[in-house]
């Protein structure tokens, strides 16, 4: 079989994912603020209204609690809704629906009612959107039992996580990174192994496991390349599934490399990296040859000026430096 590689932007990858799920099943519909006539706040759904019509590409009023609740109701009633929450910042208004309804109804109904809703959220830091619109709140949702939480840190996942998520009988949250929308990259056409249960080893290495997700993936990959030129062989793990965590993959990696660095844009305290670090200590403590380290976002409201914004989250050079420090203290 010939490997088919296509060059694609992150935005286009998201759109193709949407097209695939809309074409494959009549019950699938997209709802969200400005997704129809405007083409999506980030132009991800541009042109979909023309192809699929108003019933399946649905503009909704500016009420996150209302339309996310409606999506959950549609899912219960047998539809397959894809709900777009423009950004994670606004998802706080829908959190009650997500946490108290979507995540619990299977349990509250004694297994009778499942909620196959997929909620997509733009998120992340890096477009000078200032403190109220620059958030990495993956950990809020990763905290909730009953949800499946995915993070699309690569073009491949931007393209293929959604079709995989649509097969889940339970509610799925997908985090998409707005700072990556214009970024182009090559992906494989129809890659194997995109599912919503496994972390992905993006680069194999022997000396340290860089464990990351979201915008950390490419930064870590680039850092690993630079480290390779210095003779340091780093493994990069893309967590991809933030809940339930695929701990087997990263624990096996740390057991192999004996060192771990966790990279994320999110604030350090009570974060995904806290959880990963704790599990490493709990389960593979005796494999560790150095303390587990973390590179996280600074615990400040994210600043507006570009240089301050850049310095508030880990960058490639920070990852390179930290790995060097761990390996050659």
């Amino acid at each position, binding site marked *: 079989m010939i490997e088919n590689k296509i060059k694609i932007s992150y935005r286009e990858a998201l759109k193709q994912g949407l097209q695939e799920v809309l074409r494959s099943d009549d019950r699938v519909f997209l709802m969200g603020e400005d997704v129809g006539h405007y083409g999506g706040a980030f132009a991800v759904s541009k042109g979909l209204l023309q192809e699929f019509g108003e019933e399946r590409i649905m503009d909704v009023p500016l009420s996150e609690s209302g339309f996310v609740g409606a999506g959950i109701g549609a899912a219960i009633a047998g539809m397959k809704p894809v709900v777009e929450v423009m950004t994670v910042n606004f998802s706080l208004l829908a959190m009650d629906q997500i946490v108290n309804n979507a995540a619990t109804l299977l349990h509250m109904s004694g297994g009778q009612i499942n909620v196959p809703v997929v909620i997509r959220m733009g998120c992340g830091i890096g477009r000078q959107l200032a403190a109220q619109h620059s958030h990495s709140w993956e950990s809020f949702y990763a905290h909730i039992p009953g949800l499946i939480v995915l993070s699309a840190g690569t073009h491949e996942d931007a393209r293929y996580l959604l079709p995989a998520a649509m097969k889940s009988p339970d509610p799925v949250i997908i985090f998409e990174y707005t700072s990556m929308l214009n970024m182009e990259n090559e992906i494989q056409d129809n890659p194997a192994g995109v599912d919503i249960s496994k972390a992905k080893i993006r680069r194999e290495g022997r000396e340290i496991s860089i464990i990351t997700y979201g915008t950390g993936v490419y930064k870590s990959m680039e850092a690993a390349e630079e480290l390779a030129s210095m003779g340091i062989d780093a493994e990069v793990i893309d967590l991809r599934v933030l809940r339930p965590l695929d701990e087997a993959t990263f624990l096996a990696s740390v057991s192999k490399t*004996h060192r771990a660095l966790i990279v994320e844009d999110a604030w350090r305290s009570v974060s995904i990296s806290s959880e990963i670090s704790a599990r490493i200590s709990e389960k593979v403590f*005796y*494999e*560790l*040859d*150095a303390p587990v380290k973390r590179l996280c976002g600074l615990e400040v409201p994210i600043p507006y000026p570009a240089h301050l914004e850049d310095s508030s989250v880990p960058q490639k050079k920070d990852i390179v430096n930290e790995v060097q420090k761990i390996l050659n*203290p």
Partner: protein
Amino acid sequence: MIEFTMPSLGADMADGTLVEWLKKPGDQVKRGDIIATVETQKGLIDIEVFDEGTIEKLMIDEDTKVPVGTLMALINPEKKIESQKAIPDITEEPVIQPTEEKAIPAFLTENIHIKASPLARKIAAENNIDLLQINGSGENGAITRKDVEGAIEQGKLVQGKEKSSIVAEPIKEQNISNPVRSAVAAAMSRSNREIPHYYLEKKIDLKKALAWMYGKNKELPVQKRLLPAALLIKAVASSLKVVPELNAVWDTDLQLKTEINIGFVVSLRNGGIIVPAIHAADLKSVDEIMENLNDIIPRARALRLRSSELSDSTITITSIGDGGADLVYGIIYPPQVAIIGFGSISEQAFAENGLLGVRPMVRVSLAGDHRASDGLTGSRFLVALNNHLQNPEAL
């Protein structure tokens, strides 16, 4: 029931082999009685008991090597002989560690915290590597896998016929030729690693002290005649009354000792040193100290010391003796906090009151544990020592 356990006869002792029980069940013992002979790196040691009662049961067999702290015997504090029969003869196996078994690496038995990664610890334990012997290259000097593997590798290279000292082998195999050397090595390495030493020096005029001693010796029978060492020990003991901060041990903090037991370094004929204690030297006269030295030095050289003589010192004196080096800088014997070094006594030009003279001089050094005391304390001690040696009749 009182538990009698293998005593620690110094910071460097991890275990000992019971050679002979000198008491049997039913025997009455009192404080100071010798209950057993134990072989350590420092030779055969008579082990004393510190409680009164009747030996109820001997828990380990002769010729068995056990770690420090292992239960060796049960002593019934009530001296009822008949109770002895009521005790069933339980054979307890887990307490005993046969001699053949591998020595436990010191870092597992001694309560020393070593910074090492979990992986490094695991590999070290699997390969019986003593982490105390390894320098860490990790964060803040932590020992990492690389360091342990390096040590294993080094051990293999050195292995030819002799094993590397890093590999914790049973003591008997390790260095049959000189176990005392190993004990000295362990204690001195630990001292240099853990104790931040500071050094002071003072030249002391011994004219008056020696004159007093010669005068006294004229009246004494030959076997009771004094040596300068007895005088110096007494002067050190008296000076410690003035500066008690140096008569102490350091165990996470400074613990002052009320008894002044002076460890006196004795060189062994085939290498190595041993440091028996002169107990309560401040309460003894110079004659009594001399008597004590005459008894203890031959026994030390024969490696026949009592357990209390090996473990009770609260400070150490090392003295070079006639015709040797002018000065000695000691290394503190942990957990003590100071060591006093006396060079050889020799005639030197000496200025006093604007006049030159020739005097028998000794150069005295003091090494102090800077965690426990400061240079000023050490200096006060040396001044006190000088004062005492200028007034020998008061000693």
